[in-house]
């Protein structure tokens, strides 16, 4: 990549509190020593950012409250202290500004990672995302690449008030040119964020808020080595079988994966074997893994928190129906949020796909011929 550290900033220009020139080579403090142990989803994302910034001085993180505070969810905790204000900094409070500036920075040799504070607060940036981030590479026949990662804490289940719980994936997935990822495990949180930052195209990286505090026992140093040695298969564009089963397939992503896993566990007690597919990568979508599972089980239920109408879940159902018709023993069903604005905290449990609602739907998959 171009060496932006050489660029001279007009000495007459006062930069009030802004970064001085050449900060990409700024003081870098050593990483804290890490050991194997329970790691939260949030910590894995934080480590992925730190490792990516350490590995590539063109990676720059910015957004609202990402500096001293470390982000309202602490995903950028310690990055400013470690890499300096040129590499991780607070912007004025304006999402369109953040996104538009990221486009320009990406055009000039930086790999911006931006944080939108909450799903619904990314909407002021929507024009920049749809009209420029998504279209620039296509418009310029690939001459201008935009390696931007848009991190969005997203979806509900945390008792948040309005505008803090939207599942906005369908807007992005519907926009050609955007890669859309939604990890569900701590391991994927780390690895997929690293992949996203190295990816040549813009990525909308959806972080399920309710999973931030979920834990897995992991060795982050080992994950780092594995990623940097590029020995593992990439996750972008690949779904995984999260639980093997034979009777029906549950397809889920992001916040719905743990719910699907819980439903599969409950179904097993009732003697029904459900396979769970964690989509992880909404765009590009892995038809192969999903269809291989459905062809095997013959039945499928797609689960997502977003309202079902014209949604990612609707797209997945259509793709399965088109590709697996002759293997299907029942229509492919959806369990999604209702087609209503995300409810207030005291009502959200009625809205969210629940284990019971999933099991009810599985029960309806025409297990016996109807009279």
């Amino acid at each position, binding site marked *: 990549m171009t060496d932006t550290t050489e660029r001279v900033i007009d000495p007459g220009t006062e930069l009030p*509190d802004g970064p001085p020139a050449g900060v990409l080579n700024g003081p870098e403090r050593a990483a804290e020593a890490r050991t194997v142990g329970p790691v939260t989803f949030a910590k894995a994302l934080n480590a992925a950012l730190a490792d990516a910034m350490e590995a590539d001085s063109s990676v720059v993180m910015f957004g609202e409250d990402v500096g001293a505070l470390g982000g309202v969810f602490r995903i950028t905790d310690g990055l400013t202290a470690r890499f300096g204000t040129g590499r991780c900094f607070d912007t004025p409070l304006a999402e369109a500004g953040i996104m538009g500036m990221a486009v320009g920075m990406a055009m000039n040799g930086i790999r911006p990672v931006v944080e939108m504070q909450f799903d619904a607060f990314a909407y002021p940036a929507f024009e920049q995302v749809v009209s420029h981030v998504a279209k620039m590479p296509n418009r310029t026949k690939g001459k201008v690449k935009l390696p931007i990662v848009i991190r969005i804490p997203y979806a509900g289940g945390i008792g948040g008030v309005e505008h803090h719980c939207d599942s906005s994936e369908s807007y992005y997935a519907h926009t050609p040119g955007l890669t859309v990822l939604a990890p569900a495990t701590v391991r994927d949180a780390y690895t997929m964020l690293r992949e996203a930052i190295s990816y040549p195209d813009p990525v909308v990286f959806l972080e399920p808020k309710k999973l931030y505090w979920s834990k897995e026992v992991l060795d982050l140093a080992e994950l780092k080595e594995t990623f940097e040695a590029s020995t593992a298969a990439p996750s972008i564009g690949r779904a995984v079988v999260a639980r093997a089963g034979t009777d029906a397939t549950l397809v889920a992503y992001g916040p719905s994966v743990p719910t699907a896993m819980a439903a599969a566990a409950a179904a097993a007690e009732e003697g029904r074997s459900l396979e769970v597919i964690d989509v992880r990568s909404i765009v590009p979508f892995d038809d192969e893994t999903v269809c291989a599972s459905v062809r095997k089980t013959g039945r499928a239920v797609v689960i997502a928190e977003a309202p079902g109408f014209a949604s990612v879940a609707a797209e997945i159902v259509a793709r399965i129906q088109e590709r697996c018709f002759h293997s299907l023993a029942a229509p492919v069903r959806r369990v999604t949020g209702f087609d209503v*604005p995300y409810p207030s905290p*005291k009502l959200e449990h009625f809205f969210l796909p629940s284990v019971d609602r999933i099991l009810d739907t599985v029960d309806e998959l025409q297990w016996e011929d109807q009279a």
Partner: protein
Amino acid sequence: MTISTGTNRAPGTARTSDQQESAEAAMLPSATPVQLVDPNGVHTPNESYPLPDGESLLAAYHKLVVGRRINDQANALVRQGRMAVYPSSHGQEACQVAAAVVLDHQDWLFPTYRDTVAVITRGVDPMEVLTLLRGDWHSGYDPLEHKVATQATPLATQLLHAVGVAHAAKLRGEDTVVLALCGDGATSEGDFHEALNFAAVFHVPVVFLIQNNEYAISVPLKSQTVAPSLAHKAIGYGMPGERVDGNDLAALLSVLGKAVTRARAGGGPTLVEAHTYRMQAHTNADDPSRYRSQDDVEKWIPKDPLSRMRTYLRDLAVLDDDGETRIAAAAEEMAATLRDGLNTDPVVNPEDLFNYVFTEKTSQLREQADLLRGELSREQSSEEVTP
């Protein structure tokens, strides 16, 4: 004032350079914030801004004390888990009270998530106001009944709505002034700038009140703007900007009162920046120790809006022990209302999920409502079987 004639001119009319200069001078804010009662409770005379009389100040002070009690009680209730979240306006109560009391019955208020006290001061039922933050619905009061918009969370978006209400009022020939609140951080959003420009171009009766409490969550004002003040932004859009001590209830009443009067008389919009301080965390979920020192916070304790007004009114002999007792009792009554209201579990109706999305439910929503109803009745009957 030269402003009102200048802004009423026909489009395309050129101004002479003299007119230009005086218009500019009138739009620029004062070098320091307007103050009428200093932190020690002493009146600081100001030629342009009359001091409100003792009785009006006493009435407003009463609301100030009640406002403080609302903040303290709400904080306690959030700690007890009776509310989902509470963005406190502790320390900003003078702005909250002034924003509400300068308006007449037919005027409109556009509040944010932080302006619960302003909305209650305007006369909306406290329990209806706290519906949003308790988490039983997105808004609990009827905006049209009270002429108080829903408390806005997406920053600065409400400012354009305020301009719209004012523009409609103008088209309909109504005597309506709109006062719209926002924070210092929100002034960085595009919608803030569009709202100011629209208000000035359409010459509508809006007063924009920025509560500059120096922080947008963790981000200090200096990272937000390098303009000499937020009030200076007004001139770029062609409206007057005013700076006022945001902890001085008297100055707020005077400055906002003047802006409201001007708007009502057809003089167009004003941008008012109130200098205040967020004494507490952004919300109960925030940890301010990560980005500011307790020392900085403590510097603002002597500037508290309540203590100076109390001293001033006691010195004026408008407020005596009896008065204080009466006001304290009113504050306690408000606190009891909040406690009683919030300690009762709200009855939520799951069907409401579907009832208001459209004027008439779509067939899809009817299906989904049926599904939920079925689930709930099965749940209920299984509960009845296994007590």
